């Protein structure tokens, strides 16, 4: 079997709280090949961001990886030293954050924040680093990048800032970009534009991408694979095509039904009834059962395994197949 670029197995993340330990991510696994794009979808609080950040071992305290492995370029990132990790962050695996208004440091110029990233990983001159920065700014369509380099974040609009963040994520030609809700904080009118830019650049450079979003509509247009997360677990994973056309898990079905345009115009948007359980009060059995129409028997007592169901070429965690 060919080795994957990234392989996450049985990932478990816990938060150490005063009241005890909370398991935020439980038994999460997926793979990513070179140039492949994976979407992680689910409602807010499902554990998407925590999963994304755990790949480069950057979970906010008091969270920590308590189990599993993250294989990348022959190394298990849960076990390597801080120094090895530092050289992977921003270099081999880079990230794009949700809110571009908060991502850039307000007191340094764009040029400074770009050049320092290159200099943290490459032994080249400052001048060369700035030249690369200009080139990347050009790629994300920032006009007159040479002068823009000397400006501060507050002199740019939200959309422009996210372009800059994308440029920073591309500076060292990474193997993977993890984009955590890269367009959610932006004005609706430019969301598609930014998403397109990101897709175009990843395709051009054959960069792998993990796109984290609550919007199934967006991932279905951008990624080749989808992992649906619910309450810290993957409940369904497979090719985008298969999942969108023929969802297996009732939660995935609900997400698709909730997409605008899936019903006739004028009709009220569908919403999955209820809300996702808090980590502190996880229901017994399948975490989705309180919101599920099909729930019965085992659903109330046993956590369903994520396995292949029937003849479908994908995995789902549901007893009802």
């Amino acid at each position: 079997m060919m080795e994957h670029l990234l392989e996450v197995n049985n990932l478990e993340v816990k938060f150490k709280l005063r009241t005890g330990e909370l398991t935020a991510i439980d038994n999460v696994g997926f793979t990513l090949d070179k140039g492949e794009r994976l979407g992680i979808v689910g409602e807010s609080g499902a554990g998407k961001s925590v999963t994304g950040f755990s790949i480069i071992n950057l979970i906010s305290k008091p969270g920590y990886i308590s189990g599993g492995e993250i294989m990348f370029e022959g190394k298990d990132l849960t076990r390597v030293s801080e120094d090895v990790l530092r050289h992977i962050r921003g270099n081999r695996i880079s990230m794009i954050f949700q809110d571009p208004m908060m991502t850039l440091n307000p007191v340094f110029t764009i040029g400074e924040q770009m050049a320092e990233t290159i200099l943290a990983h490459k032994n080249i001159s400052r001048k060369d680093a700035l030249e690369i920065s200009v080139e990347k700014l050009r790629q994300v369509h920032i006009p007159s990048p040479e002068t823009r380099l000397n400006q501060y974040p507050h002199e740019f609009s939200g959309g422009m800032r996210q372009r800059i963040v994308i440029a920073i994520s591309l500076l060292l030609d990474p193997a993977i970009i993890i984009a955590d809700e890269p367009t959610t904080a932006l004005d609706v009118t430019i969301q598609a534009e930014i998403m397109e830019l990101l897709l175009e650049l990843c395709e051009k450079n054959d960069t792998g991408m993990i796109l984290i979003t609550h919007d199934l509509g967006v991932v279905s247009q951008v990624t080749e694979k989808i992992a649906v997360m619910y309450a810290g677990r993957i409940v369904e994973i497979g090719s985008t095509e298969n999942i969108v056309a023929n969802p297996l898990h009732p939660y995935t079905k609900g997400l698709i039904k909730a997409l605008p345009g899936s019903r006739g115009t004028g009709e009220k948007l569908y919403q999955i009834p209820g809300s996702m359980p808090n980590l502190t009060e996880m229901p017994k059995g399948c975490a989705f059962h309180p919101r599920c129409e099909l729930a019965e028997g085992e659903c109330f007592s046993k956590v369903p395994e994520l396995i292949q169901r029937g003849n479908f070429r994908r995995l789902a965690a549901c007893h009802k197949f």
Partner: protein
Amino acid sequence: MFAFITRRIIQAVVVMLIISFIGFTIKHHVGDPVRELVGVSVKASEREALREKLGLNDPFFVQYKNFLKNAVRGDFGISYFFKKPAAQVILEKAPATLELVFASSILIIILSIPLGTYCAIKPKSILSRLIMGMSIVGVSIPVFLTAIMLIFLFSVNLHILPSYGRGETVAVFGGLWDTGFLTIDGLKHLILPVIALSSIMLPLFIRLIRAEMMEVMQTEYIKFAFAKGLSKKRIWFVHAFKNTLLPVITVGGVQLGIMIAYTILTETVFQWQGMGFMFLEAVERSDTSLLVAYLMFVGVLFVGVNTVVDIIYGLINPKVRISGTK
């Protein structure tokens, strides 16, 4: 930036006008310039003639205008006790106080930055807990008590440091300034008063820097800096530090001014012949001209320091520097 500086200076002038008005009101109601000039043994009719001649029977605002005019020229009247222009007395006493404040500020800056930063970066370490614990003790002991304990320990018991006065001073700047910085004896005399004066502000600054830095460390841009693969050193000492500095500078300017108030206590305990010591004496003697001159001088100092600090803030913060807004 130019607009920003201009605005700050106009604000400073307005504040000074308010202070001068308070100063004048005190002088107008409490002071008796006739007594300052001729003493108490002069006949009532002669006093009245003198009052008329001095313009003391003029309307309030005419007198205030004259007061302002004189104040701008540095004329605050004659000190009743020293029999010299009040401004001159202040200028003679100022170096002692300013050196005390300056030395304390330096001590506070060079200690609070590394200690506060360390406590923010390693909040759980034993050393951090120790520093934070001691800072609480430091803040809660009054300055005069700290001063007395220092004297008791280092002067009375151990006999290693002097307990009062400025020691040997040297006249510099053509005799305008007496400094204690240039002699060993002068420096030795500085040690205890400086520690006493810093004893409140240093812990406050350590706690302030720690709190600000910990808040900055929680921000998205610091997380992004980690995601870019920057070294911890760069993130702590470049990214987080510069953002920590902004709020610390603002608060710091105010605190530095407040330290002038603490000099009154410190100078009194250590018999330090500065403005603070002089101030208490002037209060006892109802030396109004001197009190008003002191008020005005400290006011200028306070407003001046804050204006300079704000301008430095503007220079560091690109938002102010470029758009002139805050």
